């Protein structure tokens, strides 16, 4: 029994890695992905650098992290959100449903690729601020920053697991994609503190992993909070990851059941 579980785990991991590899290769030729992951965060970073100029050079790392986070979210909402829909458009969804690997595992691999390539945006923004603007960029708490990064990767993948089937089940939400990008930039505190926002928006911020992700990343990059406070953000990120992944897996089952019942796998 234990051996079987181990064998299945290995097989599942191999599928996830292979899906990630394929997705990365596909994305290299997709202009929309390149814009979302690389160009847009760089332009947001440039906007941040000039708009937060009065704050002084110590805010450069804040801009780098915040712009990178904006790239992560845009990638999640536009690319990971369509992880299932895109298979429907390509006509490959039936095949994916037919294979023994669960659809959620395949989408996990895709989201892993999207999140990892989005992390490149933080690196690019770092290079931009450091090499072109000459800002001295140092991560104040390197180890907590690395842990924060790992938690962020996991949280974004799991959030992607939630929104991909949601976009399939409710096309109205999917058609609202354009309207989801900037509101999350605002309530997540990517480039300014949420203390500036009206009080009624605070629960929305707290419910989103993007807020805790930005909080952990900013705090560990600038040592603006204690380790205990940063660890609390990690805990919330891990908990929301579990919750969102759990709901996501259930939604994937609903998607597949509905599609099979109605025999409308490519149309829903």
């Amino acid at each position, binding site marked *: 029994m234990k051996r079987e579980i181990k064998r299945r785990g290995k097989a599942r991991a191999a599928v996830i890695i292979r899906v990630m590899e394929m997705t990365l290769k596909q994305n290299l030729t997709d202009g929309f992905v390149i814009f979302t992951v690389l160009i847009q965060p760089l332009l947001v970073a440039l906007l941040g650098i000039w708009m*937060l100029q009065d704050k002084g050079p110590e805010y450069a790392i804040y801009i780098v992290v915040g712009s990178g986070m904006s790239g992560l979210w845009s990638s999640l909402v536009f690319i990971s959100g369509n992880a299932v829909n895109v298979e429907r458009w390509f006509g490959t969804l039936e095949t994916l449903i037919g294979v023994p690997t669960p659809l959620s595992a395949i989408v996990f691999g895709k989201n892993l690729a999207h999140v990892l390539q989005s992390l490149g945006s933080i690196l690019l923004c770092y290079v931009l601020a450091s090499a072109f603007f000459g800002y001295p960029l140092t991560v104040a708490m390197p180890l907590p920053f690395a842990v924060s990064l790992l938690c962020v990767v996991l949280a974004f993948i799991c959030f992607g697991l939630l929104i991909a089937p949601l976009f399939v089940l409710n096309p109205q939400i999917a058609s609202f994609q354009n309207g989801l990008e900037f509101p999350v930039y605002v309530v997540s505190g990517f480039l300014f503190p949420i203390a500036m926002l009206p009080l009624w928006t605070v629960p929305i911020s707290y419910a989103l992993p993007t807020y805790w992700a930005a909080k952990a990343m900013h705090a560990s990059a600038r040592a603006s909070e204690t380790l205990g406070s940063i660890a609390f953000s990690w805990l919330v990120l891990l908990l929301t990851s579990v919750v969102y992944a759990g709901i996501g897996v259930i939604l994937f089952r609903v998607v597949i059941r509905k599609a099979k019942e109605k025999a409308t796998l490519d149309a829903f």
Partner: protein
Amino acid sequence: MRSDSISGSFNRRFSLIKNARLFSQGAYLSYIALFHWLQPAPYLASKIVMPLAQMFFFVFLGTFGSETLPASFFVIGNAMQMAAVSGIYGVTMAIGGDRWEGTLVYLFGTPAPRMSIFLGRASAHILDGILGIIIGFFWGWLLLGLDLGSTNFALLALAVVVTVFSTSGLGLVMGCVGLITRNVMFVNNTIYFLLLLLSGANVPLDRLPGWLRGVSRSLPLSRGIEAARLIISGGETGRALTLLAGEAAVGAAYLVVGYLLFSGFEKAAKRRGSLEVA
């Protein structure tokens, strides 16, 4: 002789009516086709929620970052920047969409005057862009405390119309680029974000390096935004009119370039037999 004159007058009138019909039909159809207008969600997302959230983001970012600029600087800039949503995305897709939908062959096969088609596609988006800016100012006034007490509204209306026209001129050029590239959304998105950076909506132009200031001046929006700020603050009318004349000239230049590109691409595609892959 008299009969020839009557016939000529009739033909001219008929041609005028035909052009007007082509213009209005092109405007109407390109408008409803773009966002599948009968479904409110894409419209609300693209035309109201996204611009509003974007405005909020930049106003909060600007007020957080700046110790010298008032919130109205960012509110006015981002309200005017809404011209780019219709002017860039709307117009580009209205022109370039024919290629993706496979209707470019039929369009180029018709004897319809190209200028009527070309301007008709843009005109509905000009009206839509004006509406977008009005919505932006309304939100700015209602939610972000924009003071319109010293505003010359007639002049502001002129600034809005001229700025939307000039931005649509750039959109027409981008639409023509969309006829020859597979990655039109990449080009569109990049131009849109470059405008956010270089139009002066969010970053005062004197903060940009000299060469980028030059680029900014060759783009639509920068003079229109400056004029709108001047008008709302009750500034000098003459200076605002000069800025708007400059903005209109930039728009007209893009319009001419767009029309020449459109005609040029058509001729080249027909000559090479590559209408769908031009």
